[in-house]
């Protein structure tokens, strides 16, 4: 069976028929409903919450405030600073000061209006520059400054090298707050089980991370919380901290009222409270030789971490690794700072610190090319990393195929780039419109890299009839991770998919395999399944070899048969039955441990990731000369994914990433003013609609990766990190106007 043909999603039928049960669809006997009560302040201290009137309202079962939290009030993935219920301090407008639990949601909402909040209002800090000023008030509990993170890269002597460059571009760029806009707002159901375990069914990306948040809030053991993830309506990195606290609040409420509690967010609450993509301010001095060599870079970045830390240091870290794009640069000095403010906090979002730096670097490459009389293709070919080349972190790329040339060539061919680049308008309108094409190139470390311990496990459990129950510690985010795992298992064991069922897993059924983030679903989750399958095959071959009368290393698993090619063998079902007859379970636990990586915090040097995905994307635009409106004509992507295990879904990831990035480039702007999110629903926060985007193309380049058990790398995040600069370059080639700030806005007055 060729698993790369066709489309396989074991959950597609449930989703197409409306039978898939998302967290908000769960209904249980005796279930109560909780709703959050938000602060009316942006920054305040001395918080006092009066709940007596709310408690007396019809149907109300409990009203909880921070003092009712039995465990830790504050928790976080890096810093324990994000309160499950606000305590004394208000740090942003998304603080939940109380939780009202009632028999019905309507009763809870009515009672929520009766909660009274008093506090001493303080002037908020609203931008990262002010937060880093010497006299700024300190926002972080127990810390002596507002610096959430400072990341460094020191490679060679950037200043000296810049002094010797023929061309030094000194440019500033900025990016905006971006809302994840997953279609499903946060939701959770918590069930206080008779065995003392708190059971959670929530819309969250990371069951194990959620379990840590819930256990912290309850003051419970990790083993005292069991988290299931029902189908999730999109995450894109955005369903961790806040989504986990929604689960924790449901758990606190369920414990208080001793019955199941459902907490479903509406869109306004979700957009008010949930973290966003970090807005960055980037200052680059990029030095080039007359030959087009990118020789040196001196870079300062400042981003807004908002009220809490979340994963800001990790996001910054990826910005560092990719700060010079996929190019070989000898001398680099980079400082990236993240500042605490009283804005909505920022955290993980698909791309994770790379879309911001790529927006700068990939425009700088085009700017330098133009100044030096080179084409966008020539300057990239001169500078891009090649086989065995050394990255700006000092890593030698010798463990896999470095395919930047392949993805670039694929885009050039697919788009007829050279002809269209020559035909771009460059400010000269024809029939009232301007045309332009642009592209961008990247390398992206797969999985966590030096951000964390990277390993994942899988369980393969054969049943007496030959059917197989599969589990793995990477969970479904909607991207098809679990279906990929089933395909990998079917291929490894040589059995039909029909024999495999993916276990409806929980945090109690398999060890913590890390979170489904960082483009690690396929490489780590699929990898773990491949390792477990190979463990099982080894066990079965050793056990059955005497029965077959052959050496165990000659036993292969293919086409539903276990045995020697052209020789003795058993059907898969017979082989499984024979294992049980030997009283040896056909069961395996396998772990994929990612190869070691390294990092020096002082120099920003090391083997940052064990492998990289190489990508190129191009955009074609038409700009209306009278209005400045930008219309997308075409978007094309080429990605070296290692190996596409589920081709249609791999393409689907690419398409979705391109369109999300187009949203960042042209449509989306979360209006955070005076510490308040202005556009709190999807009628005013504009994500791309079907009519806003053209037909898309995706070219999959497949150089199987030796460090990945399946050969596959990933696609989730590479897909989103390039289209914003590709569109910006296309807009420049159309109009002659360089867009340094996102979202791109063309003033028609400048077009004349």
């Amino acid at each position: 069976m060729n698993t790369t043909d066709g489309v396989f999603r074991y959950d597609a039928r449930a989703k197409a028929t409306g039978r898939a049960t998302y967290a908000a669809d769960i209904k249980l006997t005796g279930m109560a409903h909780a709703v959050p009560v938000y602060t009316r302040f942006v920054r305040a201290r001395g918080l006092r919450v009066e709940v007596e009137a709310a408690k007396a309202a019809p149907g109300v079962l409990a009203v909880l405030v921070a003092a009712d939290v039995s465990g830790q009030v504050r928790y976080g993935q890096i810093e324990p600073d994000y309160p499950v219920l606000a305590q004394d301090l208000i740090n942003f407008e998304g603080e939940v000061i109380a939780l009202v639990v009632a028999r019905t949601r309507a009763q809870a909402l009515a009672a929520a209006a009766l909660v009274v909040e008093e506090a001493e209002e303080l002037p908020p800090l609203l931008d990262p520059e002010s937060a880093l000023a010497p006299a700024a008030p300190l926002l972080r509990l127990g810390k002596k400054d507002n610096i959430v993170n400072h990341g460094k890269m020191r490679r060679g002597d950037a200043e000296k090298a810049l002094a010797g460059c023929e061309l030094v571009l000194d440019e500033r760029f900025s990016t905006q707050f971006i809302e994840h806009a997953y279609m499903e707002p946060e939701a959770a159901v918590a069930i206080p089980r008779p065995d003392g375990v708190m059971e959670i069914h929530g819309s969250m990306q990371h069951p194990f991370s959620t379990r840590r948040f819930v256990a912290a809030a309850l003051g419970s053991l990790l083993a005292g919380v069991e988290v299931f993830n029902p189908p999730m309506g999109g995450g894109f990195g955005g369903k961790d901290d806040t989504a986990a606290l929604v689960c924790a609040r449901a758990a606190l409420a369920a414990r208080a009222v001793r019955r199941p509690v459902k907490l479903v967010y509406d869109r306004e609450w979700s957009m008010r409270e949930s973290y966003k993509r970090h807005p960055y301010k980037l200052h680059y001095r990029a030095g080039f030789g007359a030959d087009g060599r990118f020789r040196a870079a001196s870079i300062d970045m400042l981003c807004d971490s908002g009220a809490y830390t979340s994963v800001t240091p990790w996001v910054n870290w990826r910005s560092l690794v990719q700060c010079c794009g996929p190019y070989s640069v000898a001398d680099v000095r980079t400082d990236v700072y993240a500042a605490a403010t009283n804005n909505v906090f920022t955290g993980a979002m698909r791309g994770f610190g790379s879309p911001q730096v790529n927006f700068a670097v990939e425009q700088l490459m085009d700017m330098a090319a133009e100044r030096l009389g080179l084409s966008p293709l020539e300057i990239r070919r001169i500078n891009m990393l090649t086989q065995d080349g050394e990255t700006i972190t000092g890593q030698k790329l010798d463990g896999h195929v470095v395919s930047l040339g392949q993805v670039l060539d694929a885009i050039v061919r697919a788009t007829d780039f050279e002809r269209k680049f020559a035909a771009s308008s460059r400010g000269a309108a024809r029939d009232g419109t301007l045309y332009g094409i642009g592209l961008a190139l990247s390398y992206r470390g797969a999985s966590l890299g030096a951000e964390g311990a990277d390993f994942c496990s899988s369980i393969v459990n054969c049943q007496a009839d030959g059917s197989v129950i599969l589990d793995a510690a990477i969970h479904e985010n909607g991207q098809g991770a679990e279906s990929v795992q089933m395909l990998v298992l079917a291929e490894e064991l040589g059995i039909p998919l029909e024999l495999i069922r993916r276990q409806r897993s929980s945090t109690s059924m398999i060890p913590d395999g890390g979170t489904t983030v960082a483009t690690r679903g396929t490489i780590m989750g699929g990898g773990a399944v491949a390792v477990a399958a190979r463990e099982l095959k080894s066990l079965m071959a050793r056990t059955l070899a005497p029965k077959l009368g052959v050496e165990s290393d000659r036993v292969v698993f293919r086409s539903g048969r276990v045995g020697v090619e052209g020789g003795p063998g058993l059907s898969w079902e017979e082989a499984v039955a024979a294992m049980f007859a030997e009283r040896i379970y056909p069961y395996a636990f396998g772990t994929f441990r990612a190869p070691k990586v390294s990092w020096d915090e002082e120099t920003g040097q090391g083997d940052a990731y064990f492998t990289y995905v190489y990508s190129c994307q191009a955009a074609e635009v038409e700009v209306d000369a009278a209005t400045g409106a930008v219309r997308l004509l075409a978007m094309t992507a080429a990605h070296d994914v290692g190996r596409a295990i589920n081709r249609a879904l791999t393409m689907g990831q690419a398409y979705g990433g391109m369109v999300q990035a187009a949203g960042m480039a042209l449509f989306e702007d979360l209006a955070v003013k005076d510490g308040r999110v202005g556009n709190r629903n999807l009628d005013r926060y504009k994500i791309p609609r079907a009519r806003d985007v053209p037909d898309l193309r995706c070219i999959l380049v497949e150089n199987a990766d030796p460090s990945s058990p399946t050969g596959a790398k990933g696609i989730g995040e590479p897909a989103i990190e390039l289209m914003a600069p590709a569109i910006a370059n296309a807009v420049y080639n159309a109009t002659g106007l360089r867009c340094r700030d996102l979202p791109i806005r063309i003033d028609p007055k400048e077009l004349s």
Partner: protein
Amino acid sequence: MSGDDERFIMVNGIRRELTGAQAEGSLLEYLREELDLTGAKNGCGVGACGACTVLVDGQARRACITKMSSALGKEIVTIEGLEGPGGELHPLQQAFIESGAIQCGFCTPGMIMSSLALLGKEKRPSRERIRQAISGNLCRCTGYQQIVDAVELAARRMYPEA
């Protein structure tokens, strides 16, 4: 007929008599909370995302902003009404599955209902027409490419002669 006699709606072919309380509020609340038809989703509550789209007398309507009072006596079709009695899939459902048009799936029921309304009026809509028809349905996962593919595929299967 007048008064209480009109206190009913047809949902997926079944006549539903309504109590006074049920006749208030939104159609989405009624479908999800009273009938446990949870295929229609609440993504925004203001009619912006289309995840709650159902057919009302053959027209695609956003159930979250459709008042029950305006749906009285009318014929409602939800995603649950598309499956045949033996679980046979509607050609649109089959096409969404085969085209890779489903990722997180939260927008899928609404997308299918908007597409169904379109294919009720047009047998061979262009890709541009399809994009227009589903522009009230937001999707954050797919970039819409394979959804448009799916609607084209379903149209060819539903109307092979068109």
